[in-house]
């Protein structure tokens, strides 16, 4: 469901359909979180993505008029996809090099032995996550709060109706 939704997102040509497929994919990822024992992450995923991000995307798509027109202001038809034979050649070349580098990086991870003691399946992680956030990762927590404040102010400033300049 997750992978199918993700593939459908990138292949569907209608933006609304892509957004709904994204919602399905996000639900699938939330289910995967629940399966691997991250209950708080599953709940956060559902609340933040399904409740916030997808609704925001739908609003943006509707405000910008769905798929939009395909003719730009010069009267030329916009191509939906890009690239020709040369760009695809270079993309494949870059993909090969990147995969080699990634193989080198994850070789140590592949050799690592999985730990024997696994987190208990029904262990509630919320308490430990809260303690960790307030002690070990307090700096990142504060930085993310400042980031969210900045994003709020930035989004408000960007989408504010612009005043007429009196030059």
């Amino acid at each position, binding site marked *: 469901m997750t992978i199918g939704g993700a593939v459908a997102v990138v292949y569907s040509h209608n933006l609304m359909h892509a957004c709904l497929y994204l919602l399905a994919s996000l639900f699938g990822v939330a289910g995967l979180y629940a399966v691997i024992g*991250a209950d708080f992450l599953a709940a956060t995923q559902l609340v933040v993505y399904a409740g*916030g*991000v997808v609704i925001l995307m739908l609003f*943006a798509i509707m405000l910008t008029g769905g798929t939009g027109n395909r003719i730009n*202001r010069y009267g030329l038809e916009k191509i939906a*996809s890009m690239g020709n034979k040369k760009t695809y050649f270079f993309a494949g070349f870059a993909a090969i090099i990147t995969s080699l580098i990634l193989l080198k990086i994850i070789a140590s991870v592949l050799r690592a032995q999985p730990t024997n003691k696994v987190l208990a399946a029904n262990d509630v992680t919320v308490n430990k996550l809260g303690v960790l956030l307030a002690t070990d990762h307090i700096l990142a927590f504060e930085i993310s709060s400042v980031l969210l404040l900045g994003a709020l102010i930035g989004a408000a400033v960007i989408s504010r109706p612009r005043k007429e300049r009196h030059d």
Partner: protein
Amino acid sequence: MIARKNIIAMLLGIELILNASALNFAAYTKFVNNNLDGHILSLFIIVIAAAEASVGLGIVIRFFQLRESIHIDDAATLQN
């Protein structure tokens, strides 16, 4: 092909990529080490994705008001 020149489609792709990395961190916590640092990182990735989505969609809506388009080729100049 899957290459798009629609700004909102690109934002959807960015959401998918961030989600994949967050899931990767959670799986790392489950299968390799079992302290909860991977969960913390996934949480921060979700926070950053939400912030990025809000600012990006604000930019997209503003851009649509200016140019009546959400095609990336129309975003070639910094100023009118």
